[in-house]
């Protein structure tokens, strides 16, 4: 098993059927988005900031009933924000060797993994 040094997800690099598994970090969850916005580590675009402000105003005006989504969460769910140092083990062809075979690298691997 491997543990991703970026997202802390754990995964088998080889499946039971012998195929390789290529991990890709998930985008930030709504909880992580809340935390990142609060900490100032995520900068939204002007349009997104306007949508978030509108959602916050709507939630203040009409608080969400128990068991229903807030307008803020509804908005944040529409975002797909890549986490910092996201890894993607899926391969990309970067060239060919002398025999014509492709040379492949992971699409993104800034932090690596730890065997667990």
């Amino acid at each position, binding site marked *: 098993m491997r543990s*991703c040094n970026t*997202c*802390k*997800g*754990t*995964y*088998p690099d*080889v*499946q*039971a*059927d*012998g*195929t*390789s*598994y*290529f*991990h*890709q*970090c*998930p*985008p930030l*969850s*709504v*909880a*992580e988005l809340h*935390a990142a916005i609060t900490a100032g580590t995520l900068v939204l675009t002007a349009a997104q900031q306007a949508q978030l402000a509108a959602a916050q105003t709507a939630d203040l005006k009409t608080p969400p009933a*128990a*068991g*229903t*989504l*807030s307008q803020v*969460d*509804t908005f944040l*769910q*529409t975002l*797909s924000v890549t986490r910092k140092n996201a890894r*993607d083990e*899926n*391969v*990309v*062809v970067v060239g060919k060797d*002398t*025999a*014509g*075979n*492709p040379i*492949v690298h992971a699409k993104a691997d800034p932090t690596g993994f730890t065997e667990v």
Partner: protein
Amino acid sequence: MDPSWYGVPSPALAGGSPIYVTGEDGLRLTVFNSVAGVTVTLSGRFLPARQRSDEADPRVGVFNQTLVPATTRTASTIFMSLGEGWLLDWSAQVTAGAPLKGNTYAILELARGTTGTIARVSRLGEGYITSNVSIGWPGSTFQGMLDGEGAIRSITGTTPGAGAQISETVPTGARWELLAVLASLTTSAVVANRIAEWTIDDGANIFWRNGANVTQTASTTNKYIISEGFNQFNIDTSNDAARCHPIFMRLTAGFRFRTLVAAMDAGDQWTAPQYLVKEWLEA
């Protein structure tokens, strides 16, 4: 009839084989594969042309060459020079490993050049191969990568970190039909009503989503299921919530299925998703 009438060395008719190759031509085997431990063997028979009028008639020879393909679903190739003569028959088959039909795909071409620019002259055959299913000539029909039933695969995905969502990506070189997914969410003691949804996107843009019409409270564990063409239900006595997604929905490389949980706490924890797909290679 005197074979020299055709302008080629004896034996001109060569058992009726239409595949005459010059010394510049060779066989190029390309294999796309997703499974470890696979060896593909290219074998066949070749009748060399007589090079001098004073030499004895050549005898039919057998060729045999192996290739251990990469498991990244990218192309692995070998080139085999034959010399001048007639290709009588050939086959490509898995001789080690146990791939399913849909895991290992072979293409055989007549080509010129071993390095640098390789000129593909003609395609001789292509299709999925296993230890019991080969492609070859004579006899085989051409099969495209997206033809056939695909390989049934049960995959264990990533266990996300605490507070993170499930996100599984169709790997490079694959096409999936998602059949079913199951994962459990255990909530922390922080009081909130979580609402879990499944989404499918193209790597950025969500085009399908379906959520359990029920909330999950603190310190509970629910199982969330999506399945092709399945009846939907909310939490049952086994704490299962099932949603359906359209049948025959094909996902190509880079597409993702993910969870979205509203009011998720940083201490909430998903299990690794276990999912069933049909897989084809796509290059």
